[in-house]
């Protein structure tokens, strides 16, 4: 049995439980995509035109350094949302995102989604609240990583 794109959208943690027909509205902008290992989902400096909802596999958020090549900043797995820059001008990616293994994502057309959100402020507010929660979570994680959680304390 094939799962519809609306069902895939509804089953992702970021968008689960959207009110009313919002799921169908978002699904109208979305498609199911398979990404091969090593392939880029998004590239630094390119237009930020897609929100990726990871269904399976691992995605590495990377930054390219002249001397060290690609440095992995974070890895994200099933249930994660990849890409925030589609929400904010100038709509350009700040980092690369690369599939580490066979990755399945729901790719939501950001131009389409922004248009829907502009036309329906209630949907826009709902989306913004959910994305803000993800941003807060990532910010907290980043703060903790700055602390070096594992460095202090025990000596054996």
């Amino acid at each position: 049995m094939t799962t519809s794109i609306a069902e895939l959208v509804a089953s992702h943690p970021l968008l689960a439980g959207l009110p009313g027909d919002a799921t169908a509205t978002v699904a109208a902008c979305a498609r199911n995509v398979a990404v091969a290992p090593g392939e880029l989902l998004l590239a630094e400096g390119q237009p930020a035109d897609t929100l990726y909802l990871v269904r399976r596999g691992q995605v590495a958020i990377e930054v390219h350094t002249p001397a060290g090549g690609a440095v992995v900043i974070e890895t994200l797995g099933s249930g994660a949302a990849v890409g925030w820059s589609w929400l904010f001008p100038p709509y350009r990616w700040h980092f690369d995102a690369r599939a580490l293994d066979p990755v399945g994502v729901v790719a939501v057309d950001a131009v389409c989604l922004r248009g829907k959100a502009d036309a329906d402020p209630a949907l826009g507010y709902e989306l913004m609240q959910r994305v803000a929660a993800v941003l807060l979570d990532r910010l907290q994680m980043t703060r903790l990583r700055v602390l070096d959680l594992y460095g202090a304390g025990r000596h054996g």
Partner: protein
Amino acid sequence: MGETPTAVVPGVAGEARGHGSMAPVLHRVADRRRETADVVTLTLVPLDAPQMAFRNGQFNMLTAFGVGEVAISISSAAAGGGPLEHTVRDVGAVSHALCEAQTGDVIGVRGPFGSGWEVPAAPVAAAGDVVVVAGGIGLAPLRGAVSDLAERHCAGDRRVFVAIGAREPSQLVFDEDLERWSRAGASVAVTVDVAASGWSGRVGLVTTLVADAGFDAAGAVALVCGPEIMMRFSARALVDAGVPPESIQVSLERNMQCGGAWCGHCQLGPFLLCRDGPVLPYAGTVERLLLERER
């Protein structure tokens, strides 16, 4: 248990100890294995006493003669009569001397002291998954428990999940154990804060592994060890994932000195950690203490 004049007295929470536990038993370093640039695992054999019995999660006081004594967790498994091992990080004069100890050197051992990890024996109808969360060298006090659960089938039908976090790949310890645990059926996940060149694993906080592990949270038993701030956030992530706080155990440490609850140096709130700890239930007092600002 040792029966010599320098008898080793088993560490049982709340139990008074004799003076025997104050005299170190001489042990020879039978093997020395470097885990990372500043972490060494020592295999110890008693010179003229029976090998001590201990529980996973307990610690010993190790003496580097002429330098001093320091509390170090036992990192080998209690079941199976395997060797006594301690994994030491070089952070001070005593731990440096212990890390420099060579095969054949003699060091002193007092213990074992304190409480151990409490994992309901399998098979128990109500026994759920076992979730182990370790940060950095905090894996050392958990190593024996995981080995017993994963390799000696002490887990019964329960699933064993091991989540390990480290600052960077070079600080990961017990590589061979992780492979063995995986082969034995445990789900082992590793993440680092900072990925080095060539690292193909996960990058991020250990708490993200908890969120993604897929264990049966409501019935799970969770064992957590690492620096306190890591344990605080890991315990919170476990609770967020649905693990009851009463099912979470943490390993705390302070300045353990006597090991017999006499000197008071290891007091933390109502606990003398050398006796009441290091392993304590997270729910209630410990949860509050981990949030308290010490003066």
